[in-house]
């Protein structure tokens, strides 16, 4: 087993307890999704004030909600097409909120360089989701590229808890550029191959 796989399994145990509690209380998964956004908004506020450790704890709680909503939906048999759409939209708002918190902080500190780096990282993080969504309206699947949402969340947590947010912004920015490029190349190849078969 790989070490990231082991960490995932270890994290699953407390998560299962929370999922079971939500199922027992019959909390609707869409409410959990929205709660995640509200808590992420608070995390963005803490980031904006430069309270990284506090932001890290709040992000940790918010992401529990993000993680469990789909699982609770399955267990409550409340899976719906709208639920999937709602989850994706709210996730984008949560992503943007965290980046805006950092942009506010760096702008307050007069650091135009990091305002730009964070804004670019935000742009490519959003484009990562958009390219996949748009590609999957044309081809069956477009799940290539490294920097997806779970990776971004873990990096935000690492940056917040260890005060290395600048390095994290560089990593998210650069790897998101590669991820967007991967998705464009992959979609181009898939569509080209499909056209060749038709011809």
């Amino acid at each position: 087993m790989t070490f990231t796989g082991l960490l995932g399994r270890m994290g699953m145990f407390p998560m299962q307890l929370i999922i079971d509690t939500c199922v027992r209380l019959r909390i609707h998964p869409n409410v959990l999704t929205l709660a995640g956004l509200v808590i992420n908004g608070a995390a963005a506020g803490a980031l904006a004030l430069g309270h990284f450790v506090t932001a890290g704890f709040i992000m940790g709680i918010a992401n529990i909600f993000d993680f469990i909503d789909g699982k609770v939906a399955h267990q409550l048999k409340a899976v719906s097409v709208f639920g999937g759409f709602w989850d994706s939209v709210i996730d984008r708002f949560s992503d943007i909120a965290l980046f805006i918190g950092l942009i506010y902080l760096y702008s307050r500190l007069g650091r135009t360089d990091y305002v730009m780096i964070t804004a670019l990282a935000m742009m490519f993080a959003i484009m990562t989701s958009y390219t996949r969504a748009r590609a999957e309206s044309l081809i069956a699947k477009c799940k290539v590229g490294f920097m997806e949402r779970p990776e971004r969340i873990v990096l935000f947590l690492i940056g917040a808890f260890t005060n290395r947010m600048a390095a994290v912004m560089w990593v998210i920015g650069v790897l998101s550029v590669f991820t967007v490029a991967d998705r464009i190349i992959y979609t181009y190849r898939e569509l080209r191959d499909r056209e060749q078969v038709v011809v």
Partner: protein
Amino acid sequence: MKRAATLPARILWNAFFWTYERATWQYDLMVIAILAFVWLTPPDWLNDPMATGGGPVAWIRRLMMAD
């Protein structure tokens, strides 16, 4: 000869054009590389607005100077 010349290029291409799943050894390797960059790069090198100092590189240099 040709194989030796193309291997680094293939590794670079596979790192750039990422198609590996999570919990594979390639994923672990990428995670280690990212964590190394985040934690080992001195904040001063990146002009970090919120952190200062030379990071682990400075500690190692200080240790070597002390010897």
